[in-house]
C-alpha cells in the first residue's frame, strides 16, 4: 500500500489523507483476491482525483471538494460488500437476467399468466398440524450499550433479552453458512449497528443481505418455550420436516374424466403430478436430486415429506395443475399434422420382431448419413441416465442403399424416434442464413432442466447445431432451459426441446414390459 493510503487521525486533515483514509478503510474491508482488490482501489483513487479536480473548478476549496467526493462514495463497508457481491454473483445473475429478458417477451407474446381460480379442491391433511404462527414481540433492539465492534454472542443475547427470552444459538449450523466467522467471540463485521433503531427481523434482514446469504439458507430464529433459538434455514428445515398427504382424486377426475378409475391410467397421472411438484418446488431438495425431501405415491394419494415452509408452494402447484388442460400434451397423441415423412415401410421383414403392439416407422434421410443418425440416437440415449433403460437402439435398423432408418417399437416410441430423425435431417440452409441472434426461455413440463441440458448436448455433440454455435443454460429453479444463438438454431432447438420434453417413464415401462 502506498503511503498515500496511510491512516491519519486528526481533526483537520490534509485533503489527500481524507481520500487516503477512505481507501484504507475500504481496503481493510474488501475481501477480494489480490489483483482485483488492487484494481478496485486504483480505480477509485483515480476517480477521487478527477472528481476533486472537477469540483474545485466550481470554486470550492480542495478540502471541501475531497470531503464531498469521498461522501459520494458512501460507506466503505457497504461499498466493499457491493464489490464482493459483484465479484461473486455473476453466475447467478446471468441466469436471472436472461430470465427477465426472456420473461418480458414471453409474457407479452403468449399472455402466459393464469388468473382463473381453480375449480377443483384438493383435499389435504397435514401431520403434525402446522404450528401456530410464531410472533416475537418486535421491539427495536437497544444496541447503544454494545461495544462498537459487536460480537455475535452479544448480539444474540441482546436480541433474546429484548423479547424477554434466553438465547440458544446453534453455532455448528451457523458455521455451515460461513465456517470462519461464526462464534460467540467473532465480530459481526458490520459497522454501523449503533444508532440504528431496528427490530430483530430488520437486523437479521440487514445482516443476511450484507453477508450475501441466499434466500434458501440464511440466519433464522424461532421462539420456543421462553427461548429464542438462532440457526439457519437448513437447520430449521431438518427440524420442521412434515409428512403430508394429498388426495388428488378430484384432480384426476378433472384430468382423466371417465378414465379416473382406470387402474392403467391412474398411476401414470399421479406420477406426473409428483414430477410436476419436484420440478417446480425447489427442485434441488428432492431425493431424486440428492436432497432429503420425498414424494411417495399410493393410489390416488401423494405422501409428501418436506419442510413445512414449502407446503403453501406445493398446494399452489396442485391448484394450478387442477386447472391445466393436459389433454393437449397427453402421451399417445404425437402431433402428426406437420407432414412428417413418416411412413410404414412396405417390407418390415428385416426388422427384429418387437413383442406386444408394435409400430414400424421408417424415415428416409435426405441429408444426414443414416449411420451417423443412428450414432446420434445412441449418443443421446447413452448420455442421459433416465434414457439408458429405455434405449431403442436395438430396434433401429439402417438400410444404407435407400438411406432409410427404420424403427420398430411401441407406436409412441417409434413415432418419437421418427420425429427426432426428421428434425435432425431438416435442411440447415434456412437455419444458417440468418445472422441475427436471439434468446428463448423454454419452460419444461416433464423433463428436468439438467436432463434436457445433457440430452441436447448429446444430440448436438456439444454446443453446435448445423455448424452454428449456441449456448444452453439449464435453470433448475424454474425447470426451464435458456437457449441463445442464431435465430434459426434457437428455433430448431425449441422444436427439438418440445419434442424431447416428454414423459420418459412410459417408454421405460414399455421397454420393461417387452422384456428388454
Amino acid at each position, binding site marked *: 500500500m502506498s503511503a498515500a493510503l496511510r491512516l491519519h487521525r486528526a481533526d483537520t486533515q490534509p485533503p489527500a489523507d481524507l481520500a487516503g483514509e477512505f481507501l484504507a478503510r475500504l481496503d481493510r474491508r474488501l475481501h477480494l483476491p489480490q489483483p482485483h482488490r488492487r484494481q*478496485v482501489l486504483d*480505480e477509485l483513487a483515480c476517480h477521487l482525483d478527477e472528481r476533486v479536480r472537477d469540483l474545485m473548478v466550481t470554486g470550492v476549496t480542495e478540502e471541501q471538494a475531497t470531503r464531498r467526493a469521498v461522501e459520494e462514495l458512501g460507506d466503505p463497508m457497504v461499498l466493499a460488500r457491493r*464489490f464482493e457481491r459483484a465479484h461473486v454473483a455473476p453466475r447467478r445473475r446471468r441466469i436471472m437476467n436472461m430470465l427477465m429478458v426472456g420473461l418480458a417477451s414471453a409474457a407479452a407474446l403468449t399472455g402466459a399468466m393464469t388468473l382463473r381460480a381453480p375449480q377443483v379442491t384438493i383435499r389435504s391433511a397435514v401431520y403434525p398440524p402446522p404450528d401456530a404462527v410464531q410472533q416475537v414481540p418486535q421491539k427495536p433492539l437497544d444496541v447503544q450499550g454494545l461495544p462498537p465492534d459487536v460480537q455475535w454472542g452479544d448480539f444474540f443475547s441482546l436480541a433474546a433479552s429484548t423479547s424477554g427470552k434466553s438465547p440458544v444459538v446453534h453455532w455448528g449450523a451457523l458455521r455451515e453458512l460461513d465456517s470462519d466467522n461464526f462464534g460467540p467471540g467473532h465480530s459481526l463485521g458490520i459497522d454501523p449497528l449503533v444508532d440504528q433503531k431496528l427490530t430483530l427481523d430488520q437486523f437479521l434482514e440487514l445482516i443476511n443481505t450484507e453477508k450475501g446469504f441466499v434466500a434458501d439458507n440464511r440466519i433464522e430464529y424461532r421462539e420456543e418455550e421462553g427461548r429464542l433459538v438462532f440457526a439457519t434455514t437448513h437447520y430449521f428445515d431438518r427440524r420442521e420436516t412434515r409428512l403430508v398427504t394429498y388426495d388428488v382424486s378430484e384432480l384426476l377426475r378433472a384430468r382423466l374424466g371417465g378414465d379416473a378409475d382406470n387402474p392403467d391410467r391412474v398411476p401414470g397421472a399421479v406420477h406426473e403430478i409428483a414430477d410436476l411438484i419436484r420440478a417446480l418446488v425447489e427442485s434441488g431438495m428432492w431425493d431424486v436430486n440428492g436432497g432429503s425431501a420425498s414424494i411417495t405415491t399410493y393410489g390416488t394419494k401423494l405422501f409428501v415429506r418436506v419442510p413445512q415452509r414449502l407446503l403453501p408452494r406445493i398446494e399452489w402447484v396442485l391448484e394450478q395443475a387442477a386447472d391445466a388442460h393436459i389433454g393437449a400434451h397427453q402421451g399417445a397423441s404425437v402431433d402428426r399434422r406437420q407432414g412428417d415423412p413418416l411412413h410404414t415401410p412396405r417390407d418390415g421383414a428385416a426388422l427384429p420382431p418387437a413383442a406386444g403392439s408394435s409400430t414400424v416407422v421408417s424415415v428416409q434421410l435426405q441429408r444426414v448419413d443414416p449411420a451417423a443418425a443412428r450414432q446420434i440416437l445412441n449418443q443421446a440415449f447413452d448420455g442421459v441416465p433416465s434414457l439408458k433403460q429405455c434405449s431403442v437402439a436395438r430396434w433401429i435398423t439402417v438400410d444404407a442403399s435407400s438411406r432409410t432408418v427404420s424403427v420398430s417399437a411401441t407406436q409412441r416410441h417409434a413415432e418419437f424416434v421418427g420425429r427426432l430423425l426428421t428434425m435432425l435431417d431438416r435442411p440447415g440452409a434456412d437455419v444458417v442464413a440468418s445472422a441475427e441472434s436471439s434468446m428463448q426461455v423454454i419452460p419444461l413440463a416433464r423433463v428436468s432442466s439438467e436432463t434436457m441440458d445433457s440430452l441436447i448436448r448429446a444430440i448436438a455433440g456439444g454446443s453446435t447445431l448445423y455448424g452454428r454455435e449456441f449456448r444452453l443454460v439449464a435453470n433448475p429453479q424454474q425447470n426451464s432451459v435458456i437457449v441463445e444463438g442464431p435465430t434459426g438454431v434457437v428455433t430448431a432447438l425449441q422444436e427439438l426441446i418440445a419434442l424431447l420434453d416428454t414423459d420418459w417413464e412410459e417408454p421405460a415401462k414399455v421397454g420393461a414390459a417387452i422384456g428388454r
Partner: protein
Amino acid sequence: MLHKDAQRDQAELVILSLLDAQGPLYGYAISKEVSGRSDGQLRLTPGVLYPLLKELESEGLISGSVEEVHSDRKEAAPDAAEGRKRKWYRLTARGRKRLAARIEAHRTWRRVIDLFIARDPMDHDQKEHGR
C-alpha cells in the same frame, strides 16, 4: 427486491448503450456522460457505478484495461507520483448481445405498459376537438 433488480438492469442498459455509442470509457467519464446526456435527470452514483462495472466485467459483458495517467494534482497526492491507474472499459461481443436483448426487452416492456396507460392527453384533446 424486484425493484432493486429492475433499477440495476436499467443501469446496465444505460452503461452498455453508452459504451456501444461512445466506444471505450472509464468510470468517471461514464458517470459524467450519464448525467450530461440526461440533463442531470439520471445519476449513477459512484457507489453504485463502480461495483456494477465490476459485475459487468465479471460477466464478460465489458472488458477493462488499465492506463497509467499522471495526476495533475501531485501536490495533493505527492506519493502517487508514479501516476494513477485509470481503468477503461469497452463492450465485448457478449455485451453487445446482451445489449440487444435488453433493448428488445425494454421495448416490449414499454409497449406492454403503454397498453395500460390512459391515452395521451394530446390525443384526447384532438379527438374532443374533432367532434
